[in-house]
């Protein structure tokens, strides 16, 4: 038992993790495709037309999973960054760095699909709904994290500074969400609630779940690909990288 735990810790070094990630990536792409096909099929063909919103509501099958992923990825990113800060490991910091752009993409996708949903439903490209506004702020938090890491030359310092920012962000996200919700209800009452989804048919829930899994597998696949590139770049002075790229 102890032997196998030690085996797992071996993968904490960039050199050992690099080939492992390489072997795992195709599996995650396969899972992405599988869940994606199933999810899209349910979204477009199985889930019934909504009585109030017609066909346009189907965009929630992209919007909601993207929102979920954007928040989930931030938590995971903060976890890896915090771990790297606490244990002084290089790979954890690299994982956090590789997750950030995907998280930002999910947040941007959520915002964009939110706008696309809003136009036919409410006649405006943007509404200051609590969820969308919180998503916008989350997007800014991602941008801040990426900008900070990009601005610092020393990768170790960038890892640690990013970790502090991500942890401060994690603590602040519930506060921000709560305050935006308060702001929204105070000012607009309950008239505008973009993400008040139509009463959920069973199939709709399945559709969202499958799409969420699809996005999750995609995020892992992309993050692993990106972390391999980061490993090569950061460890470029070591012998094993010189052999690997030769």
């Amino acid at each position, binding site marked *: 038992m102890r032997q196998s735990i030690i085996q797992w810790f071996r993968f904490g070094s960039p050199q050992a993790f690099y080939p492992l990630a390489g072997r795992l990536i195709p599996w995650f792409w396969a899972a992405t495709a599988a869940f994606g096909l199933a999810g899209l099929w349910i979204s477009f063909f199985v889930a019934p037309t909504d009585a109030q919103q017609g066909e346009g509501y189907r965009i929630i099958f992209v919007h909601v999973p993207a929102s979920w992923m954007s928040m989930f990825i931030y938590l995971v990113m903060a976890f890896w960054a915090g771990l790297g800060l606490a244990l*002084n490991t290089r790979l954890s910091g690299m994982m956090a760095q590789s997750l950030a752009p995907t998280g930002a993409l999910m947040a941007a996708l959520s915002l964009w699909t939110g706008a696309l949903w809003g136009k036919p439903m409410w006649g405006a490209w943007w509404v200051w709904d609590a969820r969308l506004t919180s998503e916008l702020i989350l997007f800014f938090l991602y941008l801040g994290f990426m900008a900070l890491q990009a601005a610092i030359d*020393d990768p170790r310092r960038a890892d640690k500074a990013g970790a502090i920012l991500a942890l401060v962000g994690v603590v602040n996200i519930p506060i921000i969400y709560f305050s935006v919700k308060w702001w929204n209800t105070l000012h607009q009452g309950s008239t505008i609630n973009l993400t008040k989804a139509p009463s959920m048919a069973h199939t709709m829930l399945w559709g969202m779940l499958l799409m969420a899994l699809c996005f999750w597998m995609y995020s892992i696949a992309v993050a692993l690909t990106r972390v391999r590139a980061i490993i090569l770049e950061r460890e*470029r*002075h070591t012998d094993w990288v010189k052999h690997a790229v030769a």
Partner: protein
Amino acid sequence: MLNVSGLACSRGERRLFSDVGFSLAAGEWLHVQGENGSGKTSLMRLLVGLSPADAGQIRWRDEPTPSTEFRRDLIYLGHHAAVKEDLTPLENLRLAAALDGIALDERAALVALIRLGLRGREELPVRVLSAGQKRRVLLARLLTRPAVLWVLDEAFNALDVAAVKLLGELIAEHLSAGGMAVLTSHQPLPVPGGKALVL
């Protein structure tokens, strides 16, 4: 009292030094030598606890550093002037002492400044002093801060001949009173004895 073993440091991708070790007892001092870029300043910063080491241990009075006691017993003078230009030398010394939690009355501060040759300039803003005089204000802290270990990085730079001699005297006095010092310098130092460490 000071035991260092197995220190290693890298800057970016370059390994600057590895497996550096030494010990110092009361009255001893260490002269760290090496070419530009060999890591002397990095070693100083590692020693005082500003930068983390890749490997190795530093122990002060048999406790691992950084500890509050280590910081209390230590004074580090690096490349920076470490004085506030808008304050007078007197204010600089007194505020630095207050920040460190050390009582320093005006008389003791003035005595230190006069010893460093700044008589008549105690109440001028540091801004108007020459580079050498600014350095002397910094060195005055050696007298007002009762530290056991002096870590001086290129302390003799920007000093004129008289000041070099004065600093040598100060260090010698400190050592004979049971203090310790770690010095880096390009020049030969006017302090007798001393262990050498070449990076």
